[in-house]
């Protein structure tokens, strides 16, 4: 009896905490999204009514939700390829046998990953400042007109994307670098003997070998970028003209500024469903490519 129960003293506490503070809230969220839980229900739970799919229907008929969805898709659609491109470029440079001081460069390029989003977002808010920002200073120096980065609805999301790429590319760079280091050197040697150019080696050896790692990195990054929140919260507060309201920011506003907790939970579920769908499609797409490529 002792032997049978002993393992539970090891896993029990952790599972209890996960059950109580993760599984239970997620299940409760599903129920909550079918109610009109709001400020009045917060004061007295008897004010809560079951409204079934009304929250979902209402959210789906709110223009601001669709706007936040488009903004988020813009951020994911442009931000993810740019981030992975930057990661891959940096990893290739670091992996080059010609590179010196690899450890030092790797540390420098990785540093933004461990910094606090809010704190570095403040730096970038000033770098993007229309009048005093260094980015506009550089632009005018190169002969371009200054851009009202965080004040012009056309440029606010690109500014946030630039910031996100800077903040995050080091993470995938490290994973891709490990992937590059596991490509057998003999493949490159054979290609060189055959006279293959650097580009052809990249195209026919590096990329195919990296495929599974790239797929993994893409899925992690997509899932992470769908959760855009702190960047617009600090840099733009969702403005100008709501051009940087992300789905999660919209959820935060609904839930914790207007206390429509039922509706906010519905938004969280819609975002979750969308993230699952997109990562699923990506996984299937990536795997199919693998088969046909082989």
């Amino acid at each position, binding site marked *: 009896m002792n032997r*049978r129960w*002993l*393992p539970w003293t*090891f*896993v029990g*506490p*952790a599972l209890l*905490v*996960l059950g109580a*503070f*993760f*599984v239970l*809230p*997620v299940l*409760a*969220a599903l129920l909550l999204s079918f109610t009109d839980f709001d400020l009045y229900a917060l004061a007295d739970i008897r004010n809560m009514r079951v409204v079934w799919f009304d929250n979902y229907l209402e959210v789906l008929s709110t223009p601001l939700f669709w706007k936040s969805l488009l903004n988020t898709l813009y951020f994911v659609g442009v931000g993810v390829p740019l981030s992975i491109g930057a990661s891959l470029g940096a990893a290739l*440079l*670091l992996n*080059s046998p*010609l*590179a010196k001081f690899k450890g030092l*460069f790797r540390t*420098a390029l*990785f*540093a*933004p990953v*461990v*910094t*606090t*989003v*809010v*704190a*570095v977002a*403040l*730096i970038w*808010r*000033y*770098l993007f400042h229309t*009048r*005093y920002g260094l980015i506009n*200073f550089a632009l005018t120096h190169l002969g371009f007109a200054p851009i009202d980065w965080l004040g012009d609805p056309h440029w606010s999301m690109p500014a946030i994307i630039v910031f996100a790429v*800077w903040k995050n590319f080091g993470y995938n760079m*490290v*994973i891709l670098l490990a992937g590059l280091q596991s490509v057998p050197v003999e493949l490159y040697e054979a290609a060189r003997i055959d006279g293959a150019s650097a580009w052809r080696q990249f195209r026919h050896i590096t990329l195919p070998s990296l495929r*599974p790692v790239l797929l*993994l990195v893409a899925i*992690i990054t997509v*899932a992470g970028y769908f959760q855009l*929140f*702190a960047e617009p*919260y*600090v840099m733009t507060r969702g403005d100008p003209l709501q051009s940087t309201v992300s789905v999660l920011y919209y959820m935060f506003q609904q*839930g*914790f500024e207007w206390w429509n*907790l039922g509706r906010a939970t519905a938004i*969280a*579920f819609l*975002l*979750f469903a969308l993230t*699952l769908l997109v990562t699923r499609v990506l996984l299937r797409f990536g795997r199919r490519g693998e088969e046909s490529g082989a």
Partner: protein
Amino acid sequence: MTPRTAKFTVNGALLLLALVVVFPLLWMLSVSFMQRGEASAFPPPLLPAHATFANYRELFEHAGMGRYLFNSLFLATTVTLLSLAFNLSAGYAFAKLRFAGRERIFQALLGALLVPAQVGMIPLFLMMKWMHLVNTYGGVIVPCLTTAFGIFLVRQYARSIPDDLIEAARIDGAGEWRIFLRIILPLLKPVIVTLAIFSFLNTWNDFMWPLIVLSDREWLTAPVAIASLSREHVQDYELMMAGSVVTILPVLALFLVLQRHYIQGLLLGSVKG
């Protein structure tokens, strides 16, 4: 391309990239030592004309930054220590102990990794409210006590411990907890360091949950506090940069000292496929 120009191109590109990446951090440091209003000029100055600690003094004497940093430090340390205890024992059990439903529960844990935290965030907030944990340290700590990722990381690592070692200790009559504390824990040292940095950095840098669960000034963490300060001091670049410096410095320093472990953990965690 001759070998020499190739070498020059690769290293030149790396140097340029590293400068661009590190520049915002250096600039933050520089602006934090500038006099009030000095950064609001065109062209923007790169270095302070007369370096001053005035911004830091203002931060700690009037803006209460000391308190916020203490809150962050206390929370990150507590979460790290407690979550280590939960995750290490559970991760070890999933790797080495036999119990009914082990594989099925572990699969469920892997499934939990796919669910983003904000799905359950609102009910969690209500739970914290009913437990009177809103605006307390407990509200931040309790939901972070254990993570599916932490358990997963420990399990992956603990699987490499030979069964014979544990079996031999059992034959010698050692109890399971004694084996865990005396024999296993020392062997898990690398993953303990890795997990400790991860949970310290994640707790320190976390923004959304502390923003939701803490609203009284005295309990705010450093990131939440500088976000709210930045709304009151929109024009005070120098002050805000000093705030960013003190928020980033502890985690950046910790990373620089222990980066090998951090990057190992990152790789170990990402090959879960």
